[in-house]
């Protein structure tokens, strides 16, 4: 069933993109097909192929009703959802907390989520990896990592 839903979602996304392509400004067009021609051509081919693939999937599903076996890995686990949620939280908090603090919390949370229970070791790894990444990327490679606000911002200047 998931395969069919994925096809339908794909068709919806392609539909949205195709609708958007109709709004492309064609006034300054100098070449025969213009800025909308190539993507529209590609999208029409993709939509046709997706419909074909959808029918093939439905036909296959009817022929083999047990195709979606219950043994397949399930995405509704705390690890899967928790991992995605922790990345979202990290991105939302990093501008406020700064890279180091946000990354320490993120890595600690991730280790906890993935079954680690030795808290001392987890804290050590989180701190080491966060400082290591900050020094490598922020200092050596001059990547402007987020610094956070207030005192966190001031402290970050000592590191990167």
């Amino acid at each position, binding site marked *: 069933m*998931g*395969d069919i839903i*994925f096809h339908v979602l*794909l068709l919806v996304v*392609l539909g949205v*993109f195709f609708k*958007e*392509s109709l709004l*492309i*400004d*064609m006034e*300054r*067009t*100098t*070449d*025969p*097909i*213009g*800025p909308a*021609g*190539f*993507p529209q051509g*590609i*999208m029409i*081919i*993709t939509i046709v*192929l*997706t419909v*074909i*693939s959808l029918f*093939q999937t439905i036909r296959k599903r009817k022929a083999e009703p047990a195709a979606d076996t219950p043994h397949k*890995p*399930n*995405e509704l*686990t705390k*690890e*899967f959802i928790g991992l*995605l949620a922790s*990345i*979202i939280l*990290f*991105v939302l908090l*990093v*501008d406020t907390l700064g890279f180091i603090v946000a*990354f320490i919390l*993120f*890595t600690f949370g*991730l*280790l906890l989520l*993935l*079954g*680690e229970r030795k808290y001392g070791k987890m804290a050590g790894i989180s701190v080491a*990896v966060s400082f290591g*990444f900050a020094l*490598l*990327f922020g200092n050596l*490679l001059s*990547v402007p*990592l*987020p610094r956070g606000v207030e005192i966190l911002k001031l402290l970050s200047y000592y590191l990167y």
Partner: protein
Amino acid sequence: MDFNLLLDGLLTTLSPGNLVLVFLGMLLGVLFGSLPGISSSMAIVLMLPFTYYMGVIPSIILLVAIYAGAAYGGSITAILFNTPGTPEAVATTFDGYPMTKQGKAGRALGLAISASAFGGIFSVFVMLFLSPPLSEVALKIQSAEYFALALLGITVISAVGTKNVTKAVISGMLGITIAMIGIDPISAAERFTFDHIELMNGIEFIPIMIGAFALGEVLNQITERSEAQNFSTSEKIKLEGYKLKDILKYKWVALKASAIGTAIGILPGTGGSIASIVSYGEALRSSKNKEKFGHGAEEGVVAPESANNAAAGGAMIPTLVLGIPGSPTTAVILAALTLQGLQPGPQLMSEQPLLLYCIFFSMLIASIVTFIGGRIGVKSFSLLLNLPYSTLAMFIIGLSIIGSYAVSNSMFNVWVMLAFGVIGYYMKKYHFSPASLVLGLVLGKLMEETFRRQLLITNGDYMSFITKPISATILLLAVLAIFYPLLAKYFSRKKEKSDQSISQ
């Protein structure tokens, strides 16, 4: 060729100070190349300020050695973590990572080192002896041929070696559609930006690549391991021994890929990512064991790694001889030459012949010492493989987040990486092809620009793509590649029938 100058060039490069710079540059290149989000062009830009106070020759030697090292470095994380360090290493993940999963990480990395060195050395010799004539040929390759080449790159990989050709082609087309986001390069019209300022410059393909490959793979491992609640042990990945002579088994694959890599590298505006994709496709097409590709075929590591290093050398040819950069990285090197007060272009060869020979030799030495630098890089990264999977996953995700952020110092790219991590996971689950998606992304812009430019030049003559002999030949190969699975099925059925009739 002036052999006195050649000797002077060799001796200058071998002087202790310059030799140290070659080693240093190569090591830095391997380090930067292996970090996702840090491309070879970025590595060179970061080192530019250090060259301000150096002389012309030492500074260019350093930058060229970084370039050669970075062309290899990308393969380390591509093979070990399915996270290509550079776009040039995307094709290396296709078979490199499956080899790691089979416990052959050491062999894959060893093959990548040897293939990279082979490709680099090959292109330096081509550069040394054939620079002027090849540059003239490269200028004759025009829009129609570029378009055909991009199409061939996509079709070969989408059609062969995937479980479902339709889904692979859909994935490639989706990649091309995503590549269209942003400002149209010809008319400057906004396309698919949905009024978001972040989308005006288009979507960077490195976060998509990191998401689809690295995060997608971590999600995949997590779903599999969560059933058994097994996060404490890593897969049994061992760095088995590897002998240099093993590359000889694939000498023809490496030679062909190096020739393709050098040829594509010479074409202005292309570079290692396209070279590695096309040579992977060619290795797959000509292999007797096609079914092994995508599941840990050794040729699948040798071909892209030879090609992307050869392309690095190839791209230097038009840069130095004509002043036209063959890749984004050589464009940065060209800027560095200008910073040193040199005027790149055809006159450079007559005005600075020693500099050119020094560049050739520093690339040659950097390619040879890749064996040493590569092994240092591999040893340091391989320590991570002994960690429990929970720590390894944390490290990969951390690297993915910073790698995506560092591309343009924007958290928007981390959102893109996250979204494509989920999309990549489901694509893999439902037998779509994340690899074809990335190929579409890399080649999409080139395809569209060259297609439209050709129509513009010929006043809308679509036949011009098939009336030019080079482009017609490449397009024919692309069509054959698309129909290859059908033809293969037809011929195998025919053979079965004839076998049955003989047995009866």
